């Protein structure tokens, strides 16, 4: 047991929580985190702070570097998993290195989803999934107020919109189906929520009213950097165009493992996949829900952190089921502003 | 002593005395090395080389005391190092006439490693090798040219080694001038020293010079005087092959020019490098030289 090698793919809140739990439960085993990031674990929910002048990434780190040395957690940064071979319990990194594991926890989370018709404009849009992207957006916005066009408008984007407005920027939301994702908002309640957004200072353009986005173009010289052209011919100028259409599980490398997949990795309530040595936690997995009789996603900071802990516990001999404890309701407060449990992460 | 007085008188008469120093040679009476000092003085005189333009370099040994007995520039260096030192002198100043002198121990034992290189480079110096087949200065030990079976204090039963064949070695190393002479025939020796010095390039003159004090068995004057023979008439001095056959011909040893071919000297080659590199050649006086 002491020589066991636990490998965690992904260094978000889930993976990090899992690593800490593993170390607590098994002081001797080897723990490796493989991540695409160049940085150690930082709280992505803090990223809007870059608009408040917090630009030193070291201030975002949740643990100092020594924490990983002290806990003997090997962190493989800049590393992409190319393949997992469940038969031999070996995963291969894109740089052709084989890493054997005894247990594997997939905690890669999700990556921003972009509708097919906008895919070609990806280079002209800015994501907000990492520190680097956040800094890039912050640098792209002119001091003293820039303009951001937000497409879609999931809860991550709307959270950012709050900070941008607070810090003197102008946000125009091109609202559509994914607005408020992952909240399911009924057609009847939607106008009220949109109105709440406007109360909060977001300018809203309903996608349906302009026929959808036709094109995103480089701004002309002397004008803002980007131009969003709608199908009805109308245009929006912006310094930055950001897609917020919700996220999709990042599981490409799991293709050949044979574990069951729907949109995410399918896991039982104990967070194990259909392979006995592979577990999944966080935004990447769909967990069997007895009540709903389906595999479903659970989002939110508290949920994904809890998943990391549960998975790690079960990887080291535990047998606990994940229980969601985060309220999922979207509401409007007394001042007419939106309140979402997803925004509570202090 | 009679011998010495006679030689001094002869030198006086010849007008070559200006090349001789006032120092009295340290050699044993009857030693063939006296003839060599005389031979060199004769050659310098005959070739008209000013004494201040002459550097005689020696190593250690009986023969290496040689420079002290000439009134030229001289370097009495270390055992075996006459040739590399002489090379340095010549490379430094092409206007100088540079002679290296030494014995069989100096040249073919401790200094043997330098021989192929000075020969292949064709440094324009003359190497006079006084072969007495013995270490005379340290009182008669075995040398690299001592005969097998020879008894000395360091080989009290007998010398177990074959002697080297210096002439064959120098020929195979590519020396551009190789000859042999005999101290017992001073006139031949004089003539050969002149020829060797007149050669442009590395010239090796092997001089048989029996040790009158420590070797009473082998190449004594008695033996050699009767048996040396001239290089056969019609010998082709441009044929390395013929020269090597001559050098392996055994007793009696032939004396005369074995091999003589013109070849660019080290100085020529170094000047060539300067030209190749686009540098400017230094001005030289240009030493007068008799044609070969």
């Amino acid at each position: 047991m002491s020589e066991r090698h636990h490998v965690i793919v992904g260094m978000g809140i889930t993976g990090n929580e899992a690593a800490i739990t593993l170390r607590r439960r098994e002081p001797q085993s080897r723990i490796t985190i493989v991540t695409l990031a160049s940085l150690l674990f930082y709280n992505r929910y803090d990223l809007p702070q870059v608009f408040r002048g917090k630009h030193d990434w070291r201030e975002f780190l949740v643990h100092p570097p020594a924490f990983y040395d002290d806990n003997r957690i090997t962190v493989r940064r800049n590393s992409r998993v190319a393949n997992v071979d469940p038969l031999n319990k070996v995963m291969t990194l894109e740089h052709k290195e084989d890493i054997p594991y005894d247990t594997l926890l997939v905690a890669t989370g999700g990556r921003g989803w972009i509708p097919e018709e906008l895919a070609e404009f990806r280079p002209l849009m800015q994501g907000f999934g990492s520190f680097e992207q956040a800094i890039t957006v912050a640098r792209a916005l002119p001091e003293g107020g820039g303009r951001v066009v937000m497409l879609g408008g999931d809860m991550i984007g709307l959270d950012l919109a709050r900070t941008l407005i607070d810090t003197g920027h102008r946000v125009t939301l091109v609202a559509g189906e994914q607005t408020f994702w992952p909240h399911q908002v009924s057609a009847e309640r939607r106008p009220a929520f949109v109105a709440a957004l406007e109360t909060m200072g977001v300018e809203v353009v309903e996608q349906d009213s302009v026929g959808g986005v036709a094109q995103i173009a480089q701004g002309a010289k002397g004008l803002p950097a980007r131009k969003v052209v709608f199908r009805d011919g109308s245009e929006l100028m912006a310094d930055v165009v950001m897609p917020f259409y919700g996220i999709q599980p990042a599981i490409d490398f799991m293709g050949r493992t044979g574990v069951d997949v729907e949109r995410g990795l399918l896991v039982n309530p104990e967070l194990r996949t259909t392979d006995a040595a592979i577990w999944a936690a966080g935004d990447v997995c769909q967990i069997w829900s007895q009540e709903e009789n389906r595999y479903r996603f659970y989002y939110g900071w508290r949920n994904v952190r809890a998943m990391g802990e549960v998975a790690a516990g079960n990887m080291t001999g535990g047998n606990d089921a994940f229980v969601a404890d985060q309220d999922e309701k979207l509401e409007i407060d007394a001042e007419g502003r939106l309140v979402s449990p997803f925004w509570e992460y202090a | 002593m009679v011998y010495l007085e006679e030689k001094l008188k002869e030198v006086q008469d010849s007008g070559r005395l200006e090349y001789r120093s006032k120092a009295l040679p340290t050699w044993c009476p009857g030693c063939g090395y006296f003839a060599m000092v005389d031979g060199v003085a004769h050659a310098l005189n005959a070739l008209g080389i000013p004494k201040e333009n002459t550097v005689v370099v020696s190593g250690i040994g009986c023969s290496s005391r040689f420079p002290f007995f000439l009134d030229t520039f001289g370097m009495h260096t270390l055992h075996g190092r006459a040739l590399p030192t002489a090379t340095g002198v010549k490379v430094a100043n092409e206007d100088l006439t540079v002679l290296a002198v030494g014995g069989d121990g100096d040249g073919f034992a401790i200094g043997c490693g330098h021989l192929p290189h000075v020969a292949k480079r064709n440094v324009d110096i003359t190497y006079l090798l006084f072969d007495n087949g013995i270490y005379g200065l340290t009182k008669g030990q075995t040398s690299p040219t001592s005969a097998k079976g020879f008894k000395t204090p360091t080989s009290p039963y007998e010398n177990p080694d074959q002697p080297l064949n210096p002439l064959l070695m120098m020929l195979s190393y590519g020396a551009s001038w190789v000859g042999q002479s005999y101290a017992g025939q001073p006139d031949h020796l004089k003539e050969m020293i002149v020829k060797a010095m007149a050669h442009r390039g590395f010239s090796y003159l092997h001089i048989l010079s029996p040790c009158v004090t420590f070797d009473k068995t082998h190449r004594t004057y008695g033996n050699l005087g009767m048996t040396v023979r001239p290089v056969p008439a019609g010998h082709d001095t441009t044929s390395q092959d013929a020269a090597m056959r001559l050098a392996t011909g055994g007793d009696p040893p032939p004396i005369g020019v074995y091999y003589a071919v013109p070849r660019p000297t080290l100085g020529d080659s170094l000047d060539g490098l300067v030209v190749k590199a686009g540098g400017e050649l230094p001005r030289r006086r240009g030493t007068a030289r008799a044609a070969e």
Partner: protein
Amino acid sequence: MDATDIQILIVGSAGDGTIAAGNILRQALAEAGYKVISFDVYPPEIRGFGKCIARMRATIEQAYSLKQQSDVMLSLDDSHAIPHVAEVRDWGAVLYESKPVANAPQGHITGHIRPGQIPYGCAIREISEKATGANRSRNIVALGYLAGLYRLPREAFHAIIDRQFKKRGAEVASVNRKAFDEGYAAGAGAFKLDDVAFGPPKPNVVPGTVVEMINGNAAVVKGCLDAGIDCFFGYPITPATTIMERLATEMPRHGKRLVQTEDEISAISATIGAGFAGTRSATATSGPGLSLMQEMLGLGTMAEVPSVVFVSQRGGPSTGMPTKTEQSDLNSALFGGHGDAPRIVMAPTNVEGCYRCAGKAFEMAEAYQTPVIVLLDLYLSNRYETVAFGQKSPFEPDVNKRPRKQDLGAGYKRFALVEGGVSPRAVPGDAGGMHIVTGLEHNELGRPADSAEMHLAMCDKRLDKLKGALVHPDFTVAKRFGAMGKAAVGLLAWGSTFGECLEAMFQAEKEGIDCSAMKVVMLSPFPEEAVSAFMDDCAAVLVPELNHDGQFARLVQGTLGRKVVKLTRVPGVPMRVSDILGEIRRLAGRNLPQAAE
């Protein structure tokens, strides 16, 4: 960061162009206006896959040594680089191939980068193949990435690349330029997370000087040429070989002569032969060669013939560690031969010193008619520094003491016992100057003479005349740095280790320790007065040196009869500044009043 002080480390195998990349980088940094000190480590194997390391430190003012920790590491071969990852400081950067063909036995480098370091992966091979159609320019692509990441001026690199590859054709130069540019674009596009930042450089402001990025051996060559070297004789030996190689190119251009001899004995013999002939001649070797030269150097002393010997020390004894640095040939240089054979021995402490010592060695050999040994070591021979050279040679072309006409002729006393001991010297070609030099003890005329009186007189002469070297014009025999008055700890050092001593001194000063340092350049004759005065000021004197026995410490103690504290190390690499600093702290503590009880 207020002042630029960045150390970059490039690690790869011999086939990766590691040293070539380092060479371009340090030259480009110098071209951009930074001061650079740099030291490469390369394998003993001629070809193959031995480890190569190029290390350089770029600063605004010239640094004296390398730092213990690097700020940036570029890996061109993970298997060699992985053991050096730990050398990079926290928040520093590690640059590597992100798409290797195969991985190191220890795995990919990302498995070894410490949490505090910033990893930068670059598809070096892919970019090289795309840019040049081959992967041969990987080192240049990687260099471009590094330059792009730190926004180093692209033109400086272009200039150096053009200069470097010009001789292999314009095509090669342009291909490498392209490789560099592609790498640069990738680097500039990378998101910079480390805190390494190059501040604006300070351009060279000394008028009439040319700044060169040059290593110790090249500086020696420049010194030789500026001193008007006539002849050089040498036999290849690491780490001195590049002196001969460079001279072989340069000397014919100046109409001068170089001969590769069959061994070191021949080399020194010819050098002394050429010295006797009146020219400025030199040879260069390392410890084993110096051992072979000892007998002939004794003749040089005895015959009073000028010669210059550059000795670049390496790990000894015997064949030792040919590609590792050490300072263990001091005894050999000072006392190597038999008999009482004094000679001049000097050791520069930095690259500029190599130049000065080289040139001055010829002056002194001539002025005092003696062999002069200039002791370098592998670290100094191979380390690069930015040095500002004046356009005119600072060396005297002829300091010979020549005989007067009336002293020449039959009674010319080549070894006349004169005031100061330097007898007027005639050379071949001088009418009336004929004389014989000999290894035998001799009289004033140069004739063998071994009376007790003559031997004593000549021994005195050969020793006394060298004292002139202590007051030789325009030459610093010893110099003190740091606090000038009383000091708790004095660092007394020679050769390349002095750089580390200065660095340690600066750090000690920051810690509030009264620390002073003296470099001793002239080792024989020993500058007793200056060293003694320095020791008077220091409560404790520490002598750090790279040999096992403390050879310099023994010299100081033996000469002055005063105790010093030895700090000896033989790791084959430069001394760690932290080792020196540790000793300084210990000594300072021991000598503090409160600690005295």
